């Protein structure tokens, strides 16, 4: 009897897959949860709690307290209006009959309801909730097909597709299997444990035992728990030797590469520690997903420029998915892989040092930068010239200018070295080691490494002036050149990552080098191959920068109106723009004088006639004119001085102090009077007023 059944039961649904790739797995898990919540809600099935877990071999949905039956529902369908539904005698028309038939409703149950003042017919359909077990098969099937994978595949003779072949489906409500199909596969109440450490299929009687049963079969299904175990394991193994370095990206991947993690301590020949640590770390992280260990170092034998307090230890941690009892064999295998990798890296490094950075620089002539823009040697020449220009413009002291020049010459040299060809991500870092090795001054070595900074959103800016100069020159050359070559970013396509480069330039200019971007871009454009130097190029590049400035300033929290007002006057001087935005936003939000003033400015600007000029005939000034004129002429020198000194808060306060005079003038003076002489004089007064504000920002953008 239905009535004796509990109202709720637990649902367990597991999609068993051969082995899912790590990268899309996290997103799939999030999707599965959202899909499940939406589907259950749409199916009117209440539940108490819902969890989604993943391992490389399974996506699991656990729903506790799921209603055994859908809630009943009442669906109303709006039909024709009363006038159309019934004839004069009150009999149903063909229209109404058709509507009722279409909805499968008896004519007698049609109701009339008011809708916006007109009576309409309504068909009300009562839908009795179905048992959950009748609804779940198609609902769960929809979850399998609903996950949006970046790439799917077919397998065997089946036509269904998934990220990798689905090999089992477990679906139970309470203790009962929910029958469903995916391709040729039928659901059951069986799951599987670890691929090698548990070989039998395992029946699951209830959702609540699932995690424990799997744990007994060497599977930690909760990805969060696996992450904790991995982090604990790494730290524990690393502790006797130092501190483990755990990049989030590698950790996230490793969590999705195992079902039963255990951390193994491995080591390599300390002889390899003579290779720059970045190279060793890269070989461990990117290629093998190993975790390096950092230790307090007593020695000062670093090849790099600055002595580091910490150095790499020759131990590393491997997360194994194998039997902990076999740890020695597994560790030995991984050590031999690491040995081969490090031997390769050390070989490249030693060969590179024989050639030397100057030697690699010579080979840039055979390395293409971009078809229209020539080789890396050509690019280097342009960077050098641009750095020279920047040194001039910024009056950089001679010694720093020399370092900047030298760094510019060598910045790209490592791109042709064996090590950077093999480990592209280490560009710059490798070059700085080679620079130190051939006796370049530490400032030069550092600038070579840092000229790629900032490499991503939120990355550190280059620290030294020479590094800033080269970073700026390199990026502006790339942006200007690539846009000239016809590859300006469009939509999601930005093959040369120009947006990121532009943000780098703007951040450097805002925080470090007070330059007008227009001047730098003009200089950069002027040294491109002549066929690329078209008329509109500089403006096109500046517009590109302006759009990036806007997004940076918006990200700083300035309103779109404030940003637009400021960029209208100082689009190419982002440091100044940032100061103005800060002052303007602060002032507009704290001073009520401000709103009137911007309204007055807008009015003045709309009436103004630049042809009139700002010559005032003092004989013609009426009283209200005279007051306004006095206020303007009195304030003018101070306002100009504040603007000049970038003392924008004071500047804005001065303007705000004019508010009463402005209001008074607008209230009492008839500007567009028929008296032509008076009108000219008043328009000239407006021009005086406008001239105080115009160099700062276009305030019309503020008053909407």
């Amino acid at each position, binding site marked *: 009897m239905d009535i004796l059944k509990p109202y709720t039961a637990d649902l367990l649904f597991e999609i068993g897959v051969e082995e899912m790739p790590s990268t899309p797995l996290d997103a799939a898990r999030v999707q599965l949860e959202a899909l499940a919540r939406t589907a259950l809600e749409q199916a009117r099935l209440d539940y108490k709690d819902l969890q989604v877990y993943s391992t490389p071999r399974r996506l699991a949905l656990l729903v506790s307290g799921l209603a055994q039956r859908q809630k009943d529902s009442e669906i109303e369908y709006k039909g024709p209006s009363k006038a159309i539904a019934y004839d004069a005698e009150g009999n149903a028309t063909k229209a109404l009959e058709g509507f009722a038939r279409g909805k499968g409703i008896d004519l007698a149950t049609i109701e009339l309801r008011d809708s916006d003042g007109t009576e309409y017919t309504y068909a009300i359909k009562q839908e009795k909730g179905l048992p959950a077990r009748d609804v779940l098969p198609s609902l769960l099937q929809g979850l399998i097909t609903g996950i949006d994978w970046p790439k799917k595949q077919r397998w065997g003779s089946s036509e269904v597709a998934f990220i*990798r072949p689905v090999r089992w489906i477990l679906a139970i409500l309470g203790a009962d299997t929910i029958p469903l199909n995916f391709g040729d596969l039928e659901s059951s109440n069986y799951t599987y444990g670890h691929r090698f450490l548990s070989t039998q299929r395992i029946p699951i009687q209830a959702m609540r035992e699932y995690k424990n049963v799997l744990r007994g079969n060497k599977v930690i299904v909760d990805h969060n728990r696996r992450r904790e175990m991995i982090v604990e394991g790494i730290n524990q193994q690393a502790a006797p030797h130092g501190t483990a370095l755990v990049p989030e990206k590698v950790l996230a991947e490793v969590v999705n590469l195992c079902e039963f993690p255990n951390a193994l301590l491995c080591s390599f020949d300390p002889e390899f520690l003579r290779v720059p640590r970045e190279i060793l770390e890269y070989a461990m992280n990117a290629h093998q997903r190993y975790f390096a260990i950092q230790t307090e170092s007593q020695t000062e034998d670093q090849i790099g420029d600055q002595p580091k307090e910490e150095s790499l230890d020759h131990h590393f941690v491997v997360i194994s998915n194998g039997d902990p009892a076999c740890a020695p064999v597994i560790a030995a295998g991984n050590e031999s892989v690491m040995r081969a990798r490090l031997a390769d890296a050390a070989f490249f490094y030693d060969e590179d040092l024989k050639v030397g950075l100057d030697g690699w620089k010579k080979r840039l002539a055979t390395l293409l930068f971009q078809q229209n823009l020539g080789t890396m040697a050509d690019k280097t020449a342009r960077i050098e010239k641009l750095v020279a220009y920047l040194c001039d413009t910024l009056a950089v002291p001679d010694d720093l200018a020399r370092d900047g020049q030298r760094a510019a010459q060598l910045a790209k040299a490592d791109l042709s070295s064996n090590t950077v060809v093999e480990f592209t991500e280490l560009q710059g870092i490798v070059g700085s080691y080679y620079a130190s090795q051939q006796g370049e001054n530490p400032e030069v070595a550092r600038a070579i490494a840092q000229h790629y900074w900032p490499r991503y959103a939120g990355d550190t800016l280059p620290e030294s002036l020479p590094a800033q100069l080269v970073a700026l020159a390199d990026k502006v050359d790339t942006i200007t050149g690539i846009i000239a070559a016809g590859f300006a970013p469009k939509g999601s396509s930005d093959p040369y990552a120009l947006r990121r480069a532009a943000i780098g330039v703007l951040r450097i200019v805002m925080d470090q080098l007070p330059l007008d971007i227009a001047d730098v871009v003009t200089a950069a454009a002027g040294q491109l191959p002549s066929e690329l130097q078209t008329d509109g190029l500089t403006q096109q590049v500046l517009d590109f920068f302006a759009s990036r400035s806007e997004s940076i300033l918006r990200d700083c929290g300035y309103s779109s109106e404030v940003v637009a007002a400021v960029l209208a006057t100082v689009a190419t001087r982002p440091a100044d723009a940032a100061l103005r935005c800060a002052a303007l936003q602060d002032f507009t939000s704290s001073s009520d004088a401000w709103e009137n003033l911007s309204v007055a400015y807008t009015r003045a600007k709309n009436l103004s006639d630049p042809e009139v000029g700002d010559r005032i005939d003092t004989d013609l000034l009426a009283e209200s004119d005279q007051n306004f004129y006095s206020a303007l002429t009195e304030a003018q020198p101070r306002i100009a001085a504040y603007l000049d000194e970038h003392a924008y808060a004071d500047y804005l306060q001065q303007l705000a102090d004019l508010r009463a005079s402005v209001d008074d003038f607008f209230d009492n003076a008839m500007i567009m009077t028929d008296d032509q002489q008076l009108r000219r004089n008043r328009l000239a007064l407006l021009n005086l007023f406008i001239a105080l504000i115009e160099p700062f920002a276009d305030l019309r953008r503020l008053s909407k």
Partner: protein
Amino acid sequence: MNVRSQRDMLTFQEGILALQNYWANYGCVILQPYDSEVGAGTFHPATVLRSLGPDSWNTAYVQPSRRPTDGRYGENPNRLQHYYQLQVILKPSPDDVVDLYFQSLKVLGIDPAKHDMRLVEDDWESPTLGAWGLGWEVWLDGMEVTQFTYFQQVGGFECRPVPAEITYGLERLMMIVQGVDSVYDLVWSLSPAGDAVTYGDVFKINEQQYSAYNFETASVPFLLDLFAQFEAECVHTLAAQLPIPAYDYVLKCSHVFNLLDARGAISATERQAYILRVRDLAKRCCAAYLQPADASDADAADSADGAETAAKQGGGEL
């Protein structure tokens, strides 16, 4: 070299025989290597052409593979311009294909339960064959030893049913089995008296000579001429409705391209054009193999994914 004490360890040739036996027992047709230079076992017509069409097909074979740019003059213990793959094709892919693979390692003396075996994402794509599939690299204690791929398209045609391709890197696997750090130290064979012949004895001088040939000596004008001639012969043979012999010339073109590449004779811009020329030939061979009636499918499939794949094909071996 006398290594009596290693008598219980599989030699290189015994490893190959053991895997061949395993797959023979499973029901595979054991083929011999294709008698033409190829960059990988995948290029064997028993894989490329037999992956197409509805028929079942299970085969295993060793394929010597040539990658001219990977030559290191015999000095790198892990890199060779000529090496061996053991290639298995199971079509349609059986449900237990992954287990079948792991079982096969046991005949080499590798018990997967005693190691850390991983399946690490590896999406495969062959620009010249107009082919792609999804699968994994198989890692054994951190070492990539096998590639595993479910073919989705070959020659621009959907694979129905889907074949599973298992490509064993024989040298790497046997280095683990024998516990050696250099490929040249692999024991290839062991006489009853205990005299060993190593991989180095068999191939070291070849690696030295071929590296010198591939990088320094191969005649560029000759190869450029050969490429054009092989291409023309392929077209000519296709016109006679003989796709299988025509496909031989796809392989010839591909190998000549790889040699030209090793000689540094192909610029970045020309590279893509050469790849597209070989790809075009490969697709036409596949289309002809599938019967002329099916040829229109290839264009449709091609236009659907062609643009996307072409964009990613900058690098890559033919």
